[in-house]
């Protein structure tokens, strides 16, 4: 909670976002890559850079392709809140500009954590977040350090 509070202080998030975060805190996501991927740990901003289409590569130089869960899923909102410190509205504004100006497209959306896990498992370039409960050996959770 202390971390959340400090985020609030840092980003001046509206009260509703705070309220929503409190609720979303129940959803526990995990960032995953293919089990075949050499990546084991990334810093939060490195993860954010890939998910916000600011880079197409892992820090090691391998190609990186992000996958998203559908809009409105609590896990998605929690992820972006945590990794990119952006609310859904801010994420929408971000992508609006990125897409309109042609600088990037949001990650492909898959309907569920399981679908995501399956796709990641097959593709070593991919990176995504899934519900911790959906985690299995086909993928590996990587450590996201702040």
């Amino acid at each position, binding site marked *: 909670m202390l971390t959340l509070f400090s985020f609030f202080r840092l980003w001046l998030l509206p009260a509703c976002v705070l309220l929503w975060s409190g609720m979303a805190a129940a959803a526990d996501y995990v960032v995953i890559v293919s089990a075949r991927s050499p990546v084991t740990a990334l810093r939060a901003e490195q993860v954010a850079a890939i998910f916000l289409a600011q880079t197409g590569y892992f820090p090691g130089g391998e190609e990186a392709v992000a996958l998203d869960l559908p809009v409105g899923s609590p896990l998605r909102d929690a992820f972006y809140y945590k990794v990119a410190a952006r609310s859904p509205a801010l994420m*929408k504004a971000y*992508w609006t500009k990125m897409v*309109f100006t042609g600088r990037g497209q*949001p990650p492909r*959306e898959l*309907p569920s954590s399981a679908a995501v896990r399956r796709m990641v498992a097959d593709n070593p370039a991919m990176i995504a977040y899934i519900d911790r409960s959906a985690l299995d050996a086909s993928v590996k959770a990587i450590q996201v350090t702040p």
Partner: protein
Amino acid sequence: MNTRQETVRARWLRRGLDTHVSLPLFALLLLVAIWVVTFHEIDAEREHAQEAATDSLHEMLGTYEAQVARSLDGIDQTLRMLKYAVERKGALGALPELGREGLLPPGVLFVVSIVDRNGMTVASNPKAVPISVADQHYFRFHAERDTGATYVSPATRDAANSEWHLHFTRRLDDDSGNFAGIVIVEADPAYFTSSYERSRLGERGTLGLVGADGIVRALRTGDKMSFGQRLDAGIGKYSGMRELHGIGLNVLIGLDETELMAGFERQRNEKMWEAAILSGALLVFTGLLWLWSWQGARHRAHMRRAQETYAAASAASLDAFFVMREMRNVAGGIVDFKIVDANVRAEKMTGFSKDKLCSKTLCGLMPQARENGMLEHLVEVMRVGGVHEQEWQSNVPQLRAKWLHQQVVAVEGGLVAIVRDISERKLAEESMLHLAHHDTLTGLPNRSLISDRLDLTIAQAQRSGGSVLVAFIDLDGFKLVNDGLGHNAGDELLKVVAERMAGCLRACDTVGRFGGDEFVLLLTEPGSAVDAAPVLERVREAVLQSISLCGQEVQVSCSIGVAVYPSDGGDAETLLMNADAAMYRAKEKGKNNCQFYTREMNASIEEKLVLLEGLRSALDEGQFRLVYQPKVDLHSGRVFGVEALVRWDHPEHGVIGPDRFIPLAEESGMIVALGEWILRSACAQNKAWQNAGLQPLCVSVNVSPRQFEEARLVERVQQALDDSGLAPQWLELEVTEGVIMRDLQQAVAKMAQVRAMGVSLSIDDFGTGYSSLSALKSFPISTLKIDKSFVRDLGRSSGDEAIASSIIGLAHRLRLRVIAEGVETEQQRSFLRENGCDEMQGYLFSRPLPPQQLAALLRAPTVRAA
């Protein structure tokens, strides 16, 4: 006139060239230039800013158009893809199929929906509640016609999506070509304005989409989003709109003018400030420079005025000005002076023009300056400083003046010499000095010069051991010539005598006139004083030569008194005094002789001084008394009168005769008071005798020259008679010839007055003076008295006898009585009686007697018979 105009023009030109005039003009020009350039630059900037704004607008419009076109193209592609998928897989299978392939647009931005022919949404991504859109405009639009194109609806809201959205729709057809529903891509209007960037569009820029129908699909102005309205306001100055073909949309970009021009405005302000500061600095700088130059100009004008004033003053000055600059040698010593300026007087004095003078040095002009001390003096002045004045006699031929007065003032690096020609003044001084030291009449040295010379001569003699003779010369009988022939004759006589005396002298001797008829000789004699005696003798004889004055031969003599240095005195004063005393002795010795000073002379002078002193108090103290000498009728032997004679009973010296003190009384003026006393006493005594019963006598009183000339004589005589009560016929006044002859007319008038009173008059000492016989007849006198000098030798000198008898004869013919005085012998009485003389007085009959004895004598009958 023409010249004057030119001068005016020249003056204006000079003023224009003056820095303090041209500087402000130049500064003004510079100021104008600054502002012209500034405004020009601002104009250029504005133009540039406007061009840049237009360019940037067009560029942004292009960019935005491309962005919008691409987005619309993407949306259109999605719609086509949907349509294709629906037509292939059916409404329900289409979206999952596309989703699998990853062909659906990102749900975060776009909502994709499929609507059946009844208007119900059958599928959407992201998932949404199914709603009916049958009454929506876009649905009806597609249901009614098949355009084959994408329709863009204005922003709407519905139950499925509560936010405002633009709906991009496309018609679905079934196999037979009938309306089968629509596919929708919904997008937030803000999506199309998301490329708004503050850095390019500013805070109040405008960006948006406007439908061909004029309804705004999406519009962002600054941070404000709007849509749905009609674009009513015309587009602004910096705005552009472009049509997107085939979709019925226009892109719009507007820029805010104030924002656009803000940079320019800032720049403009900066430039204005720069220009203002530059102008201010220029003004301040010019002002300071002007002040400085104006002060300089004023200073120069002041200097010029001072110089002009100096030039005018020096040109008009009577003095010559030489301005000189020092010239030094390598050792630093002054070796010469360079003339740098001179005035008109200096030109006149030197005879050189100013230019020529200024090209010369002092020693170049006057080479003598090195020898005669002039240069030395000037160098000294430079060393000491200050003002130095001196007068000097010029021996420099280059300066055309004999005497010069110079004033030298040391100034920095040189000196100013002010030289005045004082020759005339010196000449005047010399002549004044000559006048002061010489007698104007004879041209001989006067008393003061003689004294100086005597001092000098004495000093010389003291050194060389010689002797000096001081001879005091007084002319005898000069007074007679002066009185008788007039002052002009007297002056002429003095001149001639002076010439003669000068002619007798040796080169080393001096003759001077002391005043009146007194002359002084200074004779220097290296040996004995006696050696100078011939000179004195020559002088005496030269004077004695007769002189022709006014057609008359006149002869005068001189009495000379000599005092000798060192025996008769050690200083000028004593010598002159002693010489004077010796001269008096010479006079006493019968004139026309020369006496050397002896010590006894001083004694007589001392005695004289003592008497003179006693005389002052003698009258008050009653030391005078009268004695009376009887006058006897030669025929009857009867005493008919007496002559009053004065005696002085001096308390120390005993009885003193009138011959000793009367001249002193004459000299001192005491004679007037003494004479009056005698007159009154004699009258009173005569009256007393008459009162005592003696037979009446006539009393004779001597009147001295001074007494006779005194204005109140007649008054005094009358007063004496009145006071004593004596009848006038018993008084007789005896007057000397000389007195009468001094001023004949006045004397005769005065005698007539006395005679009119009834008082008799007689002429005393007849025959000794220069009586004019012709005048004698007009004198109102009754008696002539024969002087005792003629009587003395009667019976021994035939000459005197002849004179006496002639006087007696003459008097009788003029009906005058004759009395002889000083008759001492019987022989004299006999001669006088035989020759018809009327009366006599003298020791033969009686010496002068005091009043009591005389009374006794008169009472004794025996005497009468004598």
